[in-house]
């Protein structure tokens, strides 16, 4: 059985859904958020997930981010089946291989921009000798050095999202999960952020999975997956 599971995960996909179902038990009736979804994402993919509200986009993203586990089916992240993993194992997998970018940036309000970027690196390495790495990542995000000591509340939306992307990148993850990354930004800033993500995908080979409602943003992706009622209804690109 274990060999079978491993065989499922060893097809070279960086993320693999194999007949994954996710059911949320509710008092009245269970809600099927994902219904036997099978999906393969290769290293270096840039995928946009689109669909109406409640279609299962976020559930798909949460499962990819190891924030949740499937009710049934197999989900492989970097060749490892997450079925049966403990909470701690899932957290370590997330910390070391997956970066999150949120619509609302979700920076830690008590920390400065630089500290926000340092945080995941310290979690991983246990060392504060990471100034260079953090500064380099922030520089790559075109964030002015004078803003490094600013708290999130002192930064604009675009600046906050740049810090958030730097935080997502600091542990050099292979996978970036972005949930409406430009949803809270004006179109000009949104375009700049998308250019950054595009660059990360093209030049650093990051696998990016992005949930969006906006077709203009989805165009940056090389593949668009459409999902309705927990089922993948089409793939473009």
């Amino acid at each position, binding site marked *: 059985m274990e060999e079978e599971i491993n065989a499922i995960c060893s097809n070279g996909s960086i993320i693999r859904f194999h007949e994954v179902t996710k059911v949320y038990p509710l008092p009245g009736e269970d809600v099927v958020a994902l219904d036997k979804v099978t999906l393969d994402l290769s290293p270096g993919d840039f995928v946009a997930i689109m669909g109406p509200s409640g279609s299962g986009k976020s559930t798909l993203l949460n499962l990819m981010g190891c*924030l949740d586990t499937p009710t049934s089916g197999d989900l492989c992240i970097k060749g490892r089946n997450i079925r049966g993993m403990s*909470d*701690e194992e899932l*957290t370590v997998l*997330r910390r070391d291989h997956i970066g999150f970018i949120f619509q609302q940036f979700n920076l*830690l309000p008590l920390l400065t921009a630089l500290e926000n970027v340092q*945080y995941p690196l310290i*979690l991983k390495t*246990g060392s504060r000798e990471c100034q260079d790495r953090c500064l380099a990542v922030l520089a790559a995000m075109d964030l002015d050095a004078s803003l490094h000591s600013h708290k999130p509340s002192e930064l604009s939306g675009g600046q906050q999202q740049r810090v958030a992307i730097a935080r997502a990148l600091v*542990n050099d993850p292979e996978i970036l999960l972005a949930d409406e990354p430009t949803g809270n930004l004006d179109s000009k800033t949104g375009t700049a952020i998308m250019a950054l993500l595009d660059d990360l995908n093209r030049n650093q080979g990051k696998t990016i999975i992005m949930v969006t409602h906006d077709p203009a943003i989805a165009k940056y992706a090389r593949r668009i997956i459409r999902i309705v009622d927990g089922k993948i209804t089409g793939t473009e690109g």
Partner: protein
Amino acid sequence: MQSRMFFDFARRNVRLHWLRSMLAVLGIIIGVVTIVSIGILGNSLVLAISDSLSTVGDSIIVSPHVGGMGFGGGGSAPELISDRDVEQIRRAVAPLITIPVYSGSSRMKIGTEDTVGVVYGLKSDDIPILLELAEGTYLRGSSSAMAGARFAEQNDIKVGSRITVGDKGSLRVVGILEERGMGFDINPDYGIVVESRWFEDAYGPNGYNLVIVKVKDLTEIDEVKEEIERQLNRRETVVDVIDTRAILDTILTAFGQISTFVTAIGGISLIVAGVSILNIMLMSVTERIKEIGVLRSIGTKRQEIRRMFLYEALILGLIGSGIGGVLSILGGYAVSLVMLQTTEYLFVPSSLIYIVYGIAFGIGISLLSGLYPAWKASNLNPIEALRHE
């Protein structure tokens, strides 16, 4: 390094909500000051009592055996201690000092006033060993007497006054005794002390009511007690042998227990402070649900979230207990001064240790109060936490 980061994180959060944090800290300060002050007061009380009673802690008291009395049995008065018994005791405990004591109560006439008092009969040589003189001299001749301090005060007895003891004859007061306070052997404050020969002439040589053995080395008390018992109670129990140290221990233990009980009541205030920490920590968790979701999503383990919140409780406990510890020295000083009129027992290790206990208890309660909020925070579902607005 991670611990430092989590600690720093907790410190900033405490500072962010400084007002409510300080209110919780105030609770801990009050709790620590209360238990430490009460603890110090109780300990000072025990030490003060111990000091005032320890002067009689070096005696063994031999008294006639009092047999058990059944229902309606009544029982007869115990036989007194004979000269032979006293000699046996003297031999058993040699070279320690043995002081046989006659005692009885009698009507007395002082001037024109009638009163009742205790009469102790002691050998002249033994009196300075047991009693201190306030004025006048020790006994001179068999028809002299010394009056206890309270007895003299109440009956206006001075050196030179005459006391008529029942129909036994008249005595001249040659000395007034220093007040002795409560004793386990004799209590001459409310009576008079006469020469034992006068007592024998007046009441007949019936036997002694008490024999006091003065022990030089307190460690030999048990041995001396056993020796007396072996000599006198060989065939039947003739005498009861008690040592004042044991009585002292019983009293001190009782006071110690009372002190512990009162300190425990003071501890309730610290528990209340703990509840307030629990309350603000739960508020903190509720306010930071989204933040906890973010922390989890970027790779913070459950145990690390737990640690972060426990550090917050620890910081509150450390600040509160630290300030409380310092202030409790003042508190201890104040209550000692007000209740005991002395602070000499404040800076002794057995009192100061209460500061350590108070601080430890304060920190312990704070950590305990932080356990549930920390557990709650670490067990939040990261997806639901991220969705929280």
